[in-house]
């Protein structure tokens, strides 16, 4: 999720023209089919993967990745770039003698959907960004390898431990489909508010711990001609970070689970949901938003915030890397857990945290041993440090950065925040499970931010989206426990 929603917005997305070309290509493959109905949907597909690239297994090479093999790597080139992956691949070649073809792209769907359909997928994929192929969709189609084998293999750093036991607890959860880990969400992300240490020092503000203090700072900012809260309005995903965090901290983990598990009282009839949305609406009603922020893209509003036009902004910890060029050198970016509403169940330090940026190994990958070994190396301290250096972000490996590496201020503040939070972290899973419901909630939030609907109507709309999703029999298989 390090790069959800609005991370990259190539105008037009996957063009229909591409789609037409693709369907035309599909058509070409299926021409020989005889009867219309049997042929109505017959691309390539099928064909089990023969164990190409399989060499001898050993303790340091548990999957038997074969020297001289080839690995097809596709990386989402978004907020984190793809230099880290190039560094990995170079190291992989040095250590194991496996050369790789590297593709860095934002058009994951465009490039990979035809390949999955034709039964010719890459070996390992960073399936992220606005054009990711939804993991649930891939899983339902039997395209993903169960990663248990990698996770139960010995760790590179300490062969007496399983890889699984070297990771931050809970970080594998978002990649679980029906009880199996099918996606490795590699980047450890925290979500919340961000502010400029420099601006706060200048104005004499201290980081607010309660919602009232937060509002007071926004009001003071407004008096001085600065916006209070900025958000990336064109992508309502971002304001949902604030709304859903408030709900979670007010109502505790039960409020989170109620939504993930499609409770009939997830929104309407939930005090936490009502308190959360009313708090956000107060910001709107009192005019404490940065003017115009509802219609701005993520880059536009984040850049405005970098220009000290707003006190706070909502975002995940990819923000610092994404804004590297726009951030003044003395900006002193700081992370702030969502301030508390009165009577909250969770402490102030609690944060939404979790893993994002799903890496997957297609079940039909040509070089499965090579891909598994690559993923095992991703979870070594050496590669995790490489990532932190190249992409200014943390990975799910416990204590995964060499202490010799200095981090940028924003990243450093997230390290501290996650230490302070300890086990007080939470995470919504419904966006990964139910994209349609997520969209409906985002849509309602967009209307609320523009003052076209009131909190009551917001709750009703969100509940309707939850109820609709609950009717889908497929949703019975998911449960956040």
């Amino acid at each position, binding site marked *: 999720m390090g790069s959800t929603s609005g991370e990259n917005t190539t105008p037009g997305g996957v063009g229909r023209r591409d789609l037409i070309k693709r*369907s035309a290509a599909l058509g*070409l493959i299926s021409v020989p089919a005889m009867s219309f109905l049997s042929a109505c949907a017959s691309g390539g597909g099928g064909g089990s993967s023969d164990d190409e690239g399989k060499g001898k297994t050993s303790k340091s090479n548990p999957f038997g990745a074969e020297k001289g093999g080839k690995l097809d790597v596709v990386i989402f080139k978004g907020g984190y770039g793809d230099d880290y992956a190039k560094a990995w691949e170079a190291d992989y070649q040095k250590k194991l003698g496996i050369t790789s073809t590297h593709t860095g792209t934002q058009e994951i769907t465009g490039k990979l959907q035809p390949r999955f359909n034709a039964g010719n997928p890459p070996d390992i994929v960073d399936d992220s960004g606005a054009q990711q192929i*939804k993991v649930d969709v891939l899983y339902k189609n039997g395209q993903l390898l169960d990663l248990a084998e990698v996770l139960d293999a010995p760790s590179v750093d300490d062969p007496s431990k399983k890889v699984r036991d070297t990771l931050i607890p809970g970080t594998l959860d978002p990649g679980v489909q029906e009880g199996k880990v099918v996606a490795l969400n590699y980047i450890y992300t925290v979500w919340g508010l961000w502010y400029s240490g420099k601006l706060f020092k200048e104005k004499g503000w201290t980081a607010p711990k309660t919602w009232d203090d937060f509002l007071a700072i926004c009001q003071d900012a407004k008096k001085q001609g600065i916006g209070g809260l900025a958000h990336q309005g*064109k992508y309502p995903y971002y304001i949902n970070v604030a709304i859903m965090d408030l709900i979670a901290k007010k109502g505790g983990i039960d409020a989170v689970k109620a939504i993930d598990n499609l409770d009939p009282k997830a929104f309407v009839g939930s005090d936490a949901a009502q308190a959360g949305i009313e708090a956000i609406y107060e910001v709107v009603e009192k005019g404490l938003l940065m*003017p*115009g922020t509802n219609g701005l893209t993520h880059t536009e509003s984040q850049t*405005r915030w970098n220009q000290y036009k707003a006190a706070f902004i909502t975002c995940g910890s990819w923000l610092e890397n994404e804004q590297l060029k726009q951030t003044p050198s003395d900006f002193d970016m700081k992370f702030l857990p969502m301030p508390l509403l009165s009577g909250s169940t969770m402490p102030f330090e609690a944060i939404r945290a979790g893993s994002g940026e799903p890496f997957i190994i297609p079940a039909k990958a040509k070089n499965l041993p090579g891909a598994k070994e690559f993923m095992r190396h991703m979870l070594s301290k050496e590669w995790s440090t490489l990532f932190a250096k190249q992409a200014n972000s943390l990975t799910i490996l416990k204590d995964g950065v060499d202490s010799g590496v200095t981090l940028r201020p924003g990243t450093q503040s997230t390290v501290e925040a996650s230490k302070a939070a300890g086990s007080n972290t939470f995470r919504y899973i419904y966006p990964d499970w139910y994209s349609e419901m997520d*969209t409906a909630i985002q849509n309602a939030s*967009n209307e609320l931010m523009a003052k076209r609907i009131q909190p009551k109507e917001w709750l009703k709309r969100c509940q309707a989206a939850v109820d609709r999703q609950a009717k889908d029999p497929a949703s019975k298989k998911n449960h956040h426990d």
Partner: protein
Amino acid sequence: MRKGQYRFVAGFLFVPVALYLIFVIWPYIQTFGYSLTDWKGQSQTFKFVGLDNYRALFQDDVFLEAIWHNILFLIFIPVITILLALFFAFMVNAGGRGRAGGVQGVAGSKFYKIVYFFPQVLSLAILAVLFNAVYRSDGGGLLNGFLIKLGLVGADNPVEWLNEPDIVLWALILVVVWHGVGFYLVLFSAAMQSVPRDIYEAALIDGASRSQSFFRITLPLLWDTVQTAWVYLGIVAMDMFVLVSSMTQNMGAYGGGPDHHSDVMSTVMMRNFLYFGKSGYACAMGVVMLLLTLVLSVVTLRATRRERIEF
């Protein structure tokens, strides 16, 4: 034709017809096939569900609203573009003051012709970037910046053009019209120049005013061209994918906001196809889009059929 020639002609026809069948007709048939399944888009496993997708389609408020938006585009984009283009073309070609020489355009008409054509050379992607800057929702936007300077809009309450349900469609129409007028101006100019001058001169001598000579002479003689323009613009109006998906508030993916007020059939289809993984359902939308387009083109061609005037 002599024997053997048929084979020769058929030989030439075979390749294009085969290409057409493979790359156009066959995908249509396939789409129809997929539309009867619950295909999720990422592999070749699916169940046959009959007409369920179509049944669901006619209860899908978002899609029905999207059809309505396409219809609005279909009415307003061609009408506004053609009227403006006709007016400008007439002014450029025959709107000048009649001097002794007879009929001519307004002063500087050659210059205008070139200037009006400029927008046409921009690609849709650039157009989207350009107008995103125009409609930007804070003081940094061209429109808002201007209105704030004039004092018509408060700096704290800029107009969120593309986030206003009542404005967003018009904002998009304006972009398309701005982009298209120049091209149709040139198209109509070319047609006007083939109208013999003596007809205008005769009308002038009979004391016809500018508007009379426009409605009685220019328009009837240009009817074929107008009809062509209408069909082209109709295609643009049925599409709109690029502008909607790259300019409007995001509804999960592919724009369409706020609250689906700017969604068109193609954006709803793509969202279902890729983002929600409801690809079979999206194929049903594709089939409905095809049928609607066919019906519309037949209706347009019928409705605008007139007797041809030879000159």
